[in-house]
């Protein structure tokens, strides 16, 4: 019973900021001189109004599920892996390289190899900050943050010089072979099989966190690292495991973007998927279900935001404002006892009621 109440509170804690942010977004759109009702209609209809729209929303959510899970699992263990963006880029490039250079493989085999390559790239790149954190106590927040630059600039170099598609003015590689392409479900929507892989990743991480010893250890590590050390857990080893799982997830996310969305590596392809994943992990309170929900929410905002811009002309930056507001409100613990909005509203209604009563009394007295 107590647990249920706590769960409801957790859900409320996540929903309230979203609602408030949308409300302010509505007012901002209105103030900016657009038809806010129409804009919001397109925001939701463009994201959820039909089969194709829903599929495109899931498409937008796919990379975010990976980066969200990657960040959530490390944060849950108290490890601040800020390197999802960089790991994503390396995973994407590795998958593209294998995708265009390996010839004569069957589609299933080729895709599997490319995905493994992407995962391996993420793994190796996360191993560096993991090892120096575990054995030399180097702050992983700083190292992962800095390594992002290395990964992004290095892949840009690779796509600009050694592997640039001949004749292209963009920094991008040649197309991957057809055998490596993750197929779409229907040609009208960009949604591809990568989404199913994201769901598989979600299920695996969910089970791992909730049903395995490793999951328990991760939670314990996140609660108190020193305690877990004293009770005899090999903390250094666990740090490496958690960080590399995080890297694998981000790398896979990049690989799937390459194989399903772009069909090649494009320098600068990610509109901050890694950082949006971090936001989503925060919204989801590092819980896989929360991450899934957060990824869908951001998918809705992204996909609906484009319809809103195309149909009503509301600039995309307003969607960024709404996203920013969600994060801002998230950081305010609104259901905290002292600042609880719920109790405040309750009190307000009560005082409204009682003041009405007193007003009535007053009237009677006057009469």
């Amino acid at each position: 019973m107590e647990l249920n109440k706590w769960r409801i509170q957790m859900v409320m804690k996540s929903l309230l900021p979203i609602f408030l942010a949308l409300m302010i977004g509505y007012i901002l759109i209105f103030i900016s001189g657009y038809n806010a009702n129409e804009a919001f209609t397109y925001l939701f209809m463009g994201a959820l109004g039909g089969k194709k729209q829903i599929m495109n929303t899931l498409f937008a959510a796919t990379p975010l599920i990976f980066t969200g899970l990657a960040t959530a699992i490390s944060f849950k263990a108290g490890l601040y892996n800020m390197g999802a963006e960089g790991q994503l880029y390396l995973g994407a490039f590795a998958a593209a390289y294998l995708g265009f250079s390996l010839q004569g493989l069957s589609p299933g085999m080729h895709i599997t190899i490319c995905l493994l390559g992407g995962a391996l790239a993420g793994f190796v790149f996360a191993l560096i900050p993991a090892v120096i954190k575990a054995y030399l106590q180097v702050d992983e927040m700083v190292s992962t943050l800095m390594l992002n630059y290395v990964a992004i600039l290095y892949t840009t170099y690779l796509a600009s010089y050694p592997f640039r598609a001949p004749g292209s003015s963009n920094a991008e590689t040649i197309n991957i072979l057809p055998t490596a392409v993750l197929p779409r479900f229907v040609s009208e929507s960009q949604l591809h099989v990568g989404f199913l892989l994201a769901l598989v990743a979600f299920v695996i991480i969910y089970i791992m966190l909730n049903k395995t010893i490793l999951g328990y250890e991760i939670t314990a590590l996140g609660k108190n690292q020193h305690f877990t050390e004293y009770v005899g857990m090999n903390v250094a080893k666990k740090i490496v495991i958690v960080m590399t799982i995080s890297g694998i997830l981000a790398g896979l996310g990049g690989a799937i973007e390459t194989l399903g969305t772009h069909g090649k590596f494009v320098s600068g392809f990610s509109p901050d998927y890694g950082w949006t994943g971090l936001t989503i992990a925060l919204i989801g309170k590092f819980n896989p279900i929360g991450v899934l929900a957060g990824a869908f929410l951001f998918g809705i905002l992204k996909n609906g935001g484009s319809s809103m811009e195309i149909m009503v002309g509301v600039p995309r930056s307003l969607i960024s404002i709404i996203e920013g507001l969600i994060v801002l409100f998230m950081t305010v613990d609104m259901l905290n006892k002292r600042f609880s909005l719920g109790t405040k509203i309750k009190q307000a209604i009560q005082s409204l009621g009682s003041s009405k009563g007193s007003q009535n009394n007053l009237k009677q007295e006057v009469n």
Partner: protein
Amino acid sequence: MKKRVLVGMLVGALALGLVGCGQKKETKETNKDQFKVAMITSEGGLGDRSFNDSGNEGLKQAKEKLNVTTKVVEPGDVSEGETYLSQLAESGMDLVITLDLGHSDVLKKVAKKYPDTQFAIFNTAVEGSNVSSVLFKEQEGSFLAGALSALVTQDTSLEQVNDKKIISFIGGIDSPGINIFLSGFKEGASHIDPEIKVLSGYTNSFADPAKGKETALSQIGQGSDIVFQAAGATGDGVIQAAKQKNVFAIGVDSDQDGIAKGNVLTSVMKRVDNAVYGLVEDGMKKEYQTTYELGLKEKGVELSPMTYTKDLISEDYLKQIEGLREQIISGEIKVKDIRK
């Protein structure tokens, strides 16, 4: 009391929003017969003082003079290209222009699906019966800039100029689309004096002014006194370096002469605005061409009016450049296109 005010304000704001919007609907009217144009910006979006802004300018003019409905949209990333192109086509646009050459692959697919909509893409050629490709002859504008630089770098009476016959070029990425500026620049310089040395370097980014400045300073250190940049926002740094060392820079895409008055010799302008306007004009007559190659003749490329520098340099140089311009337009001088 305070709480009541808070609740009241929240409810009030919401109600106001709902009521206000209900009223607004009536004012909106769309004429069905009006020609509808949409433009998708490239990376960087509006406010880049360059490519996208110039396109938007052309669209504004078309709206004013040709009475068409226009729409400018700015996708968040390149993967959204497909959604944007198809949604715009579905929403009944007559002409959909994309300035992002990263859309070339998806445009091929999308254009087939919407045969009633005309599409246009800039700076790259895409095949399709309902696709127009707009290409600029950047080499022609760069030729004039090169010729002018060759004249100016030998005029040591100018305080910006040293005694070395060295000029230089900075590009964003080592690619055909950028090297076309370099080849035209070189050709123009050697047309005036074959002994002129042209240094070149790449910043590997279109959005890194610090790198642009660093590269420019190194070239200036090697004796260059005129630095031509074709590197997007990176070029801002090049112009800053020229200002700091009091030498000349040459701007690109739009009229950048005003960024450092007196230190930007001229700008090789790509008239995206003219191109967009021309497309709309052709669209209203339903006379699209599959490829538009816009050079000096078509006013697709030209040198800036040199507002801050034309009084600094000798009038004779300007006359020579004008002569070369006429020779290119008449076909007497053919500037090589390395892309072909």
